[in-house]
Protein backbone atom coordinates (compact mmCIF):
# COMPACT_ATOMS: atom_id res chain seq x y z
CA UNK A 1 0.00 0.00 0.00
CA UNK A 2 1.37 3.43 -0.91
CA UNK A 3 0.93 6.13 1.75
CA UNK A 4 -0.86 9.31 0.62
CA UNK A 5 1.60 11.84 -0.72
CA UNK A 6 1.54 15.48 -1.71
CA UNK A 7 -1.05 18.20 -1.35
CA UNK A 8 -4.05 15.95 -2.15
CA UNK A 9 -3.03 13.33 0.43
CA UNK A 10 -2.56 15.93 3.18
CA UNK A 11 -5.89 17.53 2.23
CA UNK A 12 -7.78 14.22 2.44
CA UNK A 13 -6.18 13.41 5.83
CA UNK A 14 -7.20 16.87 7.11
CA UNK A 15 -10.73 16.41 5.79
CA UNK A 16 -11.02 12.97 7.40
CA UNK A 17 -9.74 14.35 10.73
CA UNK A 18 -12.20 17.26 10.54
CA UNK A 19 -15.13 14.91 9.82
CA UNK A 20 -14.12 12.49 12.60
CA UNK A 21 -13.64 15.28 15.16
CA UNK A 22 -16.84 17.00 13.99
CA UNK A 23 -18.99 13.86 14.32
CA UNK A 24 -17.58 13.04 17.77
CA UNK A 25 -17.95 16.66 18.93
CA UNK A 26 -21.60 16.88 17.79
CA UNK A 27 -22.43 13.60 19.59
CA UNK A 28 -20.82 14.88 22.81
CA UNK A 29 -22.51 18.29 22.39
CA UNK A 30 -25.93 16.64 21.96
CA UNK A 31 -25.40 14.53 25.10
CA UNK A 32 -24.24 17.49 27.19
CA UNK A 33 -27.11 19.74 26.02
CA UNK A 34 -29.64 16.98 26.71
CA UNK A 35 -28.32 16.45 30.25
CA UNK A 36 -28.23 20.21 30.94
CA UNK A 37 -31.81 20.62 29.69
CA UNK A 38 -33.15 17.65 31.68
CA UNK A 39 -31.37 18.86 34.82
CA UNK A 40 -32.72 22.41 34.43
CA UNK A 41 -36.26 21.13 33.79
CA UNK A 42 -36.31 18.75 36.77
CA UNK A 43 -34.70 21.30 39.15
CA UNK A 44 -37.04 24.15 38.12
CA UNK A 45 -40.15 21.99 38.09
CA UNK A 46 -39.28 20.67 41.55
CA UNK A 47 -39.08 24.27 42.81
CA UNK A 48 -42.68 24.82 41.61
CA UNK A 49 -43.73 21.57 43.30
CA UNK A 50 -42.11 22.71 46.57
CA UNK A 51 -43.63 26.21 46.50
CA UNK A 52 -46.93 24.98 45.14
CA UNK A 53 -49.34 26.62 42.76
CA UNK A 54 -51.57 29.10 44.58
CA UNK A 55 -55.07 29.43 43.18
CA UNK A 56 -57.43 32.16 44.43
CA UNK A 57 -60.94 32.79 43.29
CA UNK A 58 -62.21 36.37 43.70
CA UNK A 59 -65.88 36.07 42.97
CA UNK A 60 -66.64 39.76 43.70
CA UNK A 61 -64.14 41.00 41.10
CA UNK A 62 -64.97 38.04 38.85
CA UNK A 63 -61.33 36.94 38.74
CA UNK A 64 -59.58 33.66 39.09
CA UNK A 65 -55.90 34.15 39.98
CA UNK A 66 -53.15 31.53 39.65
CA UNK A 67 -49.72 32.28 41.14
CA UNK A 68 -46.68 30.12 40.79
CA UNK A 69 -43.20 30.73 42.16
CA UNK A 70 -40.25 29.11 40.50
CA UNK A 71 -36.50 29.05 40.79
CA UNK A 72 -34.09 28.09 38.05
CA UNK A 73 -32.10 25.33 39.73
CA UNK A 74 -30.29 24.38 36.54
CA UNK A 75 -27.02 25.50 35.01
CA UNK A 76 -28.49 27.16 31.90
CA UNK A 77 -30.92 30.07 31.45
CA UNK A 78 -34.52 29.09 30.82
CA UNK A 79 -37.54 30.82 29.33
CA UNK A 80 -40.49 29.84 31.49
CA UNK A 81 -44.06 30.49 30.45
CA UNK A 82 -47.45 29.75 31.91
CA UNK A 83 -50.95 29.99 30.60
CA UNK A 84 -54.38 29.60 32.12
CA UNK A 85 -57.48 29.03 30.05
CA UNK A 86 -61.01 29.01 31.44
CA UNK A 87 -63.69 27.42 29.34
CA UNK A 88 -67.12 25.98 29.43
CA UNK A 89 -68.61 23.27 27.19
CA UNK A 90 -65.74 23.28 24.72
CA UNK A 91 -65.72 27.08 24.42
CA UNK A 92 -62.87 29.29 25.64
CA UNK A 93 -64.17 32.06 27.88
CA UNK A 94 -61.02 33.72 29.12
CA UNK A 95 -57.30 33.13 29.00
CA UNK A 96 -54.02 34.63 30.15
CA UNK A 97 -50.38 34.02 29.20
CA UNK A 98 -47.17 35.19 30.88
CA UNK A 99 -43.53 34.42 30.28
CA UNK A 100 -40.37 34.94 32.29
CA UNK A 101 -36.64 34.54 31.62
CA UNK A 102 -34.64 33.09 34.49
CA UNK A 103 -30.86 32.90 34.75
CA UNK A 104 -29.35 30.02 36.74
CA UNK A 105 -30.20 30.41 40.45
CA UNK A 106 -32.70 33.22 39.79
CA UNK A 107 -36.24 33.10 41.21
CA UNK A 108 -39.42 34.59 39.89
CA UNK A 109 -43.19 34.54 40.09
CA UNK A 110 -45.77 34.23 37.38
CA UNK A 111 -49.25 35.49 38.10
CA UNK A 112 -52.12 34.65 35.79
CA UNK A 113 -55.67 35.93 36.00
CA UNK A 114 -58.69 34.77 34.10
CA UNK A 115 -62.10 36.41 34.20
CA UNK A 116 -65.04 34.47 35.54
CA UNK A 117 -68.20 35.55 33.68
CA UNK A 118 -70.93 36.82 35.94
CA UNK A 119 -73.82 35.86 33.69
CA UNK A 120 -76.22 33.10 34.60
CA UNK A 121 -75.32 31.06 31.52
CA UNK A 122 -71.91 30.20 33.01
CA UNK A 123 -72.16 27.05 35.06
CA UNK A 124 -69.24 25.97 37.22
CA UNK A 125 -70.21 22.33 36.83
CA UNK A 126 -69.50 22.43 33.09
CA UNK A 127 -66.46 24.68 33.39
CA UNK A 128 -62.89 23.58 32.84
CA UNK A 129 -59.57 25.19 33.62
CA UNK A 130 -56.40 24.36 31.77
CA UNK A 131 -53.07 25.31 33.32
CA UNK A 132 -49.87 25.00 31.30
CA UNK A 133 -46.32 25.54 32.50
CA UNK A 134 -43.58 25.34 29.93
CA UNK A 135 -39.82 25.70 29.76
CA UNK A 136 -37.78 26.51 26.70
CA UNK A 137 -34.03 26.08 26.84
CA UNK A 138 -31.00 26.75 24.67
CA UNK A 139 -32.90 28.89 22.19
CA UNK A 140 -35.84 26.43 21.90
CA UNK A 141 -33.49 23.51 21.24
CA UNK A 142 -35.35 21.62 23.96
CA UNK A 143 -38.82 22.31 25.34
CA UNK A 144 -40.84 20.84 28.17
CA UNK A 145 -44.48 21.59 28.90
CA UNK A 146 -46.73 20.34 31.66
CA UNK A 147 -50.44 20.79 31.04
CA UNK A 148 -53.21 20.08 33.50
CA UNK A 149 -56.89 20.09 32.62
CA UNK A 150 -59.35 20.32 35.50
CA UNK A 151 -63.06 19.85 34.97
CA UNK A 152 -65.91 21.10 37.15
Amino acid sequence: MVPPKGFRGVRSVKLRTCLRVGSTATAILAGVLLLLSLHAFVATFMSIAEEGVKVDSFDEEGLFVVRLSLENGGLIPIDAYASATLGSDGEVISQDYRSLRLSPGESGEISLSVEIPGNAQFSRANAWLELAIGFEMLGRLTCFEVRSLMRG
Partner: protein
Amino acid sequence: MRENLWSGILTAAFYILALAVLPWVVVFKLSPGIVAYVSHVGIDLGEILCMTTISGVLLAVLSLIYRLHPRGSLASLGAGIGSTLVSLYLEIFVLSFGKPSALGRVTLRQSMEGTEATLLMDFRGIILILAIGAILSAGYHVITFWTSRKEMRGPPKSQLEAGT
Protein backbone atom coordinates in the same frame (compact mmCIF):
# COMPACT_ATOMS: atom_id res chain seq x y z
CA MET B 1 -5.01 -8.25 11.23
CA ARG B 2 -4.72 -9.81 14.69
CA GLU B 3 -4.81 -6.34 16.28
CA ASN B 4 -7.90 -5.47 14.24
CA LEU B 5 -9.56 -8.71 15.35
CA TRP B 6 -8.99 -7.92 19.02
CA SER B 7 -10.13 -4.31 18.73
CA GLY B 8 -13.20 -5.55 16.82
CA ILE B 9 -14.01 -8.11 19.52
CA LEU B 10 -13.56 -5.50 22.27
CA THR B 11 -15.82 -2.96 20.50
CA ALA B 12 -18.44 -5.66 19.84
CA ALA B 13 -18.32 -6.75 23.50
CA PHE B 14 -18.74 -3.12 24.58
CA TYR B 15 -21.86 -2.72 22.38
CA ILE B 16 -23.36 -6.00 23.65
CA LEU B 17 -22.70 -5.04 27.27
CA ALA B 18 -23.89 -1.42 26.97
CA LEU B 19 -26.97 -1.99 24.83
CA ALA B 20 -28.04 -5.62 25.18
CA VAL B 21 -27.19 -6.42 28.82
CA LEU B 22 -27.03 -3.22 30.89
CA PRO B 23 -30.55 -1.87 30.02
CA TRP B 24 -32.14 -5.21 31.09
CA VAL B 25 -30.19 -5.19 34.37
CA VAL B 26 -31.28 -1.58 35.08
CA VAL B 27 -34.96 -2.37 34.37
CA PHE B 28 -34.88 -5.52 36.54
CA LYS B 29 -33.39 -3.42 39.37
CA LEU B 30 -36.25 -0.88 39.14
CA SER B 31 -39.13 -1.25 41.55
CA PRO B 32 -42.35 -2.72 40.07
CA GLY B 33 -44.16 0.51 40.99
CA ILE B 34 -41.94 2.60 38.73
CA VAL B 35 -42.27 0.08 35.87
CA ALA B 36 -46.07 0.11 36.25
CA TYR B 37 -46.15 3.93 36.29
CA VAL B 38 -43.96 4.14 33.18
CA SER B 39 -46.30 1.81 31.27
CA HIS B 40 -49.33 3.72 32.64
CA VAL B 41 -48.13 7.00 31.06
CA GLY B 42 -47.80 5.26 27.70
CA ILE B 43 -44.13 4.21 27.49
CA ASP B 44 -43.61 0.65 26.24
CA LEU B 45 -40.52 -0.32 28.22
CA GLY B 46 -40.40 -3.82 26.70
CA GLU B 47 -40.31 -2.43 23.16
CA ILE B 48 -37.52 0.02 24.06
CA LEU B 49 -35.49 -2.82 25.65
CA CYS B 50 -35.98 -5.05 22.59
CA MET B 51 -34.88 -2.24 20.27
CA THR B 52 -31.74 -1.45 22.32
CA THR B 53 -30.87 -5.20 22.37
CA ILE B 54 -31.35 -5.57 18.58
CA SER B 55 -29.34 -2.38 17.97
CA GLY B 56 -26.58 -3.58 20.32
CA VAL B 57 -26.25 -6.90 18.47
CA LEU B 58 -26.38 -5.14 15.06
CA LEU B 59 -23.73 -2.60 16.10
CA ALA B 60 -21.52 -5.40 17.45
CA VAL B 61 -21.72 -7.34 14.15
CA LEU B 62 -21.15 -4.17 12.09
CA SER B 63 -18.13 -3.16 14.19
CA LEU B 64 -16.61 -6.62 13.66
CA ILE B 65 -17.16 -6.38 9.89
CA TYR B 66 -15.74 -2.83 9.88
CA ARG B 67 -12.56 -3.83 11.73
CA LEU B 68 -11.92 -7.11 9.90
CA HIS B 69 -12.17 -5.76 6.35
CA PRO B 70 -9.63 -3.43 4.72
CA ARG B 71 -10.61 0.26 4.73
CA GLY B 72 -11.04 0.41 0.95
CA SER B 73 -13.52 -2.48 0.79
CA LEU B 74 -17.23 -2.10 0.16
CA ALA B 75 -17.95 -4.25 3.24
CA SER B 76 -16.06 -1.79 5.45
CA LEU B 77 -17.89 1.19 3.89
CA GLY B 78 -21.27 -0.54 4.29
CA ALA B 79 -20.54 -1.49 7.91
CA GLY B 80 -19.35 2.05 8.74
CA ILE B 81 -22.39 3.77 7.24
CA GLY B 82 -24.69 1.03 8.60
CA SER B 83 -23.45 1.50 12.16
CA THR B 84 -23.93 5.28 11.80
CA LEU B 85 -27.54 4.77 10.66
CA VAL B 86 -28.31 2.17 13.36
CA SER B 87 -26.88 4.51 16.04
CA LEU B 88 -28.95 7.45 14.75
CA TYR B 89 -32.13 5.34 14.62
CA LEU B 90 -31.53 4.10 18.18
CA GLU B 91 -30.95 7.66 19.43
CA ILE B 92 -34.18 8.86 17.78
CA PHE B 93 -36.03 5.80 19.14
CA VAL B 94 -34.86 6.38 22.72
CA LEU B 95 -35.42 10.18 22.61
CA SER B 96 -38.94 9.57 21.28
CA PHE B 97 -39.66 7.02 24.06
CA GLY B 98 -40.25 4.18 21.61
CA LYS B 99 -42.19 6.19 19.00
CA PRO B 100 -39.59 7.10 16.35
CA SER B 101 -42.25 8.64 14.07
CA ALA B 102 -42.68 11.39 16.71
CA LEU B 103 -39.07 12.47 15.93
CA GLY B 104 -38.31 13.57 19.48
CA ARG B 105 -41.62 15.30 20.27
CA VAL B 106 -43.28 13.11 22.89
CA THR B 107 -46.52 13.58 24.79
CA LEU B 108 -47.21 11.54 27.91
CA ARG B 109 -50.73 11.56 29.38
CA GLN B 110 -52.14 10.64 32.74
CA SER B 111 -55.77 10.89 33.88
CA MET B 112 -57.02 11.08 37.46
CA GLU B 113 -60.58 11.79 38.63
CA GLY B 114 -61.62 14.71 36.43
CA THR B 115 -58.05 15.93 35.92
CA GLU B 116 -55.90 15.20 32.93
CA ALA B 117 -52.15 15.88 33.09
CA THR B 118 -49.96 16.02 30.02
CA LEU B 119 -46.19 16.24 29.77
CA LEU B 120 -44.79 17.34 26.43
CA MET B 121 -41.09 16.92 25.74
CA ASP B 122 -39.51 18.30 22.61
CA PHE B 123 -36.02 16.98 21.77
CA ARG B 124 -36.11 17.82 18.05
CA GLY B 125 -33.18 20.22 18.41
CA ILE B 126 -31.05 17.47 19.96
CA ILE B 127 -32.06 15.07 17.17
CA LEU B 128 -31.03 17.70 14.60
CA ILE B 129 -27.55 17.91 16.19
CA LEU B 130 -27.31 14.09 16.23
CA ALA B 131 -28.34 13.97 12.56
CA ILE B 132 -25.59 16.49 11.68
CA GLY B 133 -23.14 14.26 13.57
CA ALA B 134 -24.37 11.21 11.61
CA ILE B 135 -23.90 13.05 8.29
CA LEU B 136 -20.32 13.97 9.30
CA SER B 137 -19.66 10.36 10.35
CA ALA B 138 -21.03 8.99 7.04
CA GLY B 139 -18.88 11.56 5.21
CA TYR B 140 -15.83 10.31 7.13
CA HIS B 141 -16.52 6.71 6.06
CA VAL B 142 -17.02 7.72 2.41
CA ILE B 143 -13.79 9.80 2.32
CA THR B 144 -11.87 6.98 4.07
CA PHE B 145 -13.19 4.47 1.50
CA TRP B 146 -12.37 6.77 -1.41
CA THR B 147 -8.80 7.62 -0.29
CA SER B 148 -8.05 3.97 0.65
CA ARG B 149 -9.18 2.88 -2.82
CA LYS B 150 -6.85 5.46 -4.36
CA GLU B 151 -3.95 4.34 -2.16
CA MET B 152 -4.56 0.68 -3.08
CA ARG B 153 -4.48 1.54 -6.79
CA GLY B 154 -1.15 3.36 -6.31
CA PRO B 155 -0.03 6.74 -7.65
CA PRO B 156 -1.32 7.81 -11.11
CA LYS B 157 0.75 6.92 -14.21
CA SER B 158 1.73 10.54 -14.91
CA GLN B 159 3.19 10.86 -11.38
CA LEU B 160 5.21 7.65 -11.82
CA GLU B 161 6.55 8.83 -15.18
CA ALA B 162 7.53 12.21 -13.74
CA GLY B 163 9.37 10.44 -10.91
CA THR B 164 11.51 8.27 -13.23
